[in-house]
């Protein structure tokens, strides 16, 4: 681990602005439709189209699967507007190895659904409604994420 020269070596304005916009998206959803817009549920509710097992056929998934997919489509379109309109259309890429994306993704999906929330569900919506269990969840996943990310950085510098 290296000691950073600054807490924000790439500047801080775009982080704050982006955060306010993310919050504005979830706030707009609530004010217009009354819905709570965490992102991980879409990964369970969409399976309800294909898997007949009773877990996936719960009303909370079947009743919300349509709007959750529309919300997810909005995420893609919003990023597309940024990409073409503000970032010059140069494709984003990542150097994170495929196995880390796939295996890490698996744990993200399994864990978020078992724990009923992710960085947006517990982090933004849960903290935004001042729920203690969500704060505990955020502190828990931050702790294991810090440990994992630093361990990986040690093993594979």
């Amino acid at each position: 681990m290296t000691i950073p020269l600054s807490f924000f070596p790439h500047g801080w304005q775009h982080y704050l602005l982006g955060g306010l916009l993310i919050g504005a998206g979830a706030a707009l959803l609530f004010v217009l439709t009354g819905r709570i817009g965490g992102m991980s549920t879409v990964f369970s509710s969409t399976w309800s189209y294909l898997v007949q097992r009773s877990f996936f056929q719960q009303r909370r998934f079947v009743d919300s699967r349509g709007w959750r997919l529309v919300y997810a489509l909005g995420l893609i379109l919003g990023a597309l507007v940024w990409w073409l309109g503000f970032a010059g259309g140069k494709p984003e890429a990542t150097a994170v190895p495929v196995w880390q994306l796939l295996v890490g993704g698996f744990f993200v999906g399994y864990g978020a659904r078992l724990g009923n929330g992710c960085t947006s569900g517990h982090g933004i919506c849960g903290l935004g409604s001042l729920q203690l269990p969500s704060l505990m969840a955020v502190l828990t996943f931050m702790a294991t994420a810090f440990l994992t990310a630093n361990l990986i950085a040690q093993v594979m510098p």
Partner: protein
Amino acid sequence: MKAARGLATLAAGMLFGFGLSVSTMIRPEVVLSFLRFQDFGLMLVMGGAVIVVLLAYKLAPRLMMRPLLDDHFHEHPSVWNRNTAVGAALFGVGWGLCGVCPGPAIAGLGAGNWSLLWALAGIALGALVQGLRAK
């Protein structure tokens, strides 16, 4: 009304995805540099988002009888139990491994980051296995 709700949901999602892009959270490297204490930007992203959502969740139900396009405000109480604890811990392990969480995995596709399809596939598979194992 149903069409209006659909459009509203799409617009809200677009704002969310635009914000994820502006804040560079769709770049796994930026998330990982936060988790390695090299760039604290993610705190500002989360803090900014939470403040706006907090205001909306607190004020809207007081100022309005109902949301503009529907008949009631939803609530989503979270609970602290074994599943939440284990799930959050596993989520963190995965997040620390790949630097991608559900929102950016979806939004990143709109910015042409096709590698994130691997993360998206992993998340979908993880959610499937969780549902198949659940009672």
